């Protein structure tokens, strides 16, 4: 894991002290809310429906056990005993008090964490594949590049006041587990013509009221040019991105309005000017960062284990969990374990302080002391020995973190919606709960296979409903919460934006509507292996429309 330099520590402490002063001046009335708002947003502090909300960055989703314990401590001491893991690998606290926030930031700084650039029109937390470094389908570990981007983008003076927020994701595998296509810039490590790895660069993806899939503006970029190229894109955006209209300010609109070809030319032109500057990545710089992400000393183990196999055969409950929530690891004898934050008992992505502490302990005991957070709002223990899986499962079950549903129908992404969010038009968490309660039969969930449901409480689309196989958008229609269905989205390597199927459903109809959609799939799939998305893409909207409105 990356470790801060002395200078990083110093910078962070200075920033906390600066904010402490700003909070004091606000509380004593020396600063007006208008003046203070800009400062608090620079430090990830929003004012939401019920309270302040603090968004803390988890760089590329990687946490040490110690950091997780600090997150638990903050939840317990300063909040209501829980936190919310978001789709962009942040954690949000829903109830901090203003006067406590500097102390919270101090506690975070002690474990090399912060809330800087988690809001406002700047480059946000760079997100990545939760399986980085351990995935079997990985071309190259993306984390060193994420870290380089983090260092480049943090406090970047030129890009502190962009036309709008800016989100970057990096993936190093064949499968996309980081929703690269719906980011302002998405980078995918690929093998180049000469066997050398480089990046595919996608620009202009995003959700919100104008959802768009990123355009491939460069099919191959040598790795050493990564930062100069990113700088060139950001410069073009900073100069030409629209500042006159909030709804047209994201880079996706600029790319769309300029045209892909012209935009590419502008970037290339800018790039030629800065290509050979100090941002050019020298091999030794990259190697130094790579040193922080070296493989741990894995034991040499066979890829089978007698007790594991025995449990699979004799314990159906364990077998279900193993089937759903475990993934292969590049190292023989190890597995990746998904900790489901999607039980019926808590909102998607929410974790209590005790659960956080327990997960930290489990990471120490079973997984080399690290935890990752995922785009689908779950957690991952990335390095668990096959032989430890039965014991780990027992402990996860006791913590309500072992619901066997990873990438299945109840693994729902949900934004906070009207229960927390000041911008919301409808609730999303109660809908996710109703769906989870309805589809609680394992055999049904299993039979449905790989399918995603995402819910947003307004058109800003924080819940990524556009890129779900089944997306739900809550809207306010004459004072009533109603829910629009979109079908056919995907956030993976075959990314697509879902299409609205028809008029919205009332809150008490939406779960039945989901049931109908799932049944149309089950009745029409050509074989059990044909996924929901494949069936939908083959059939189109008609049979679904007919069932829903016919």
């Amino acid at each position, binding site marked *: 894991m990356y470790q801060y330099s002395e200078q990083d520590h110093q910078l962070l402490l200075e920033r906390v002290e600066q904010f402490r002063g700003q909070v004091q001046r606000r509380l004593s009335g020396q600063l007006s809310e208008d003046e203070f708002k800009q400062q608090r947003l620079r430090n990830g502090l929003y*004012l939401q429906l019920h309270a302040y909300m603090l968004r803390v960055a988890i760089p590329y989703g990687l946490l040490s056990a110690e950091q997780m314990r600090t997150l638990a401590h903050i939840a317990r001491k300063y*909040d209501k*005993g829980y936190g919310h893991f978001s789709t962009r690998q942040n954690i949000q606290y829903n109830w901090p*008090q203003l006067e406590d926030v500097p102390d919270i930031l101090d506690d975070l700084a002690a474990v090399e964490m912060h809330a800087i650039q988690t809001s406002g029109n700047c480059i946000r937390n760079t997100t990545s594949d939760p399986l980085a470094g351990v995935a079997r389908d990985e071309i190259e570990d993306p984390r060193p590049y994420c870290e380089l981007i983090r260092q480049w983008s943090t406090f970047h003076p030129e890009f502190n006041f962009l036309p709008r927020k800016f989100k970057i994701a990096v993936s190093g595998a064949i499968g996309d587990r980081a929703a690269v296509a719906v980011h302002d810039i998405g980078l995918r490590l690929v093998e180049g013509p000469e066997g050398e790895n480089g990046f595919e660069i996608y620009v202009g993806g995003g959700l919100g009221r104008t959802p768009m899939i990123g355009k491939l503006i460069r099919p191959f970029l040598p790795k050493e040019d990564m930062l100069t190229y990113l700088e060139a894109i950001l410069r073009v955006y900073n100069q030409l991105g629209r500042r006159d209209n909030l709804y047209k300010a994201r880079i996706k609109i600029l790319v769309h309005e300029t045209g892909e070809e012209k935009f590419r030319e502008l970037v290339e032109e800018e790039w030629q000017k800065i290509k050979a500057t100090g941002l050019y990545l020298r091999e030794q710089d990259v190697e130094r960062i790579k040193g922080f992400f070296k493989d741990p000393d894995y034991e040499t183990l066979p890829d089978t284990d007698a007790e594991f196999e025995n449990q699979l055969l004799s314990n159906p409950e364990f077998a279900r969990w193993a089937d759903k929530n475990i993934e292969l690891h590049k190292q023989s004898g190890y597995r990746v374990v998904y900790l489901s934050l999607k039980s019926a*008992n808590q909102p998607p992505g929410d974790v209590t302080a*005790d659960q956080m502490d327990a997960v930290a302990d489990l990471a120490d005991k079973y997984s080399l002391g690290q935890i990752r957070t995922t785009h689908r709002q779950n957690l991952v223990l990335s390095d668990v020995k096959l032989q430890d899986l039965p014991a780990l499962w027992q402990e996860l079950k006791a913590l309500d973190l072992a619901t066997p549903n990873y990438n299945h129908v109840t693994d729902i992404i949900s934004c906070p919606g*009207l229960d*927390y969010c000041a911008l919301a038009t409808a609730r999303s968490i109660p809908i996710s709960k109703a769906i989870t309660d309805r589809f609680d039969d394992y055999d049904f969930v299993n039979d449905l296979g790989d399918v995603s449901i995402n819910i947003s409480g307004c058109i800003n689309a924080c819940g990524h409903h556009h890129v779900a196989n089944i997306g739900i958008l809550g809207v306010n229609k004459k004072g009533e919460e109603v829910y629009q269905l979109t079908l056919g989205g995907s956030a993976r390597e075959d990314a697509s934006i879902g299409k609205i199927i028809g008029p919205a459903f009332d809150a008490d109809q939406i779960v039945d509507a989901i049931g109908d959609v799932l049944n149309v799939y089950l009745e029409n799939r050509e074989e059990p292996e044909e996924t929901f998305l494949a069936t939908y893409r083959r059939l189109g909207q008609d049979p679904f429309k007919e069932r829903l409105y016919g």
Partner: protein
Amino acid sequence: MALQVYTASLLKEGLVAYLSLKDGVPSWTADIREATADTADRLDSLKAAAESAEQDNIVVAPYVIDVLETENGWKAATKREQIRAEGPSFALPQDSSTAHRSDESRRAA
């Protein structure tokens, strides 16, 4: 004419508060039922009290909302404001062991 009350967020806590004006003395309460309501054409004194509380850095961004009269007192007219008044519409995640901040602090003002 619809009845209205003033609401805002408490600066220090960030929590939801409603303006009560008793005998000309303003205070902010977490309980919407304790708020002072009036019709839009008679909101002047409430408005002045809300604005001065904002200037005195007690609350942030006061605004008026419509309320309905019920057996139990005022109830916000819209779903959004009902949720603001009552909190999230489900039980918050909770550890059995946790002695986190109780709702008492909601009444701190």
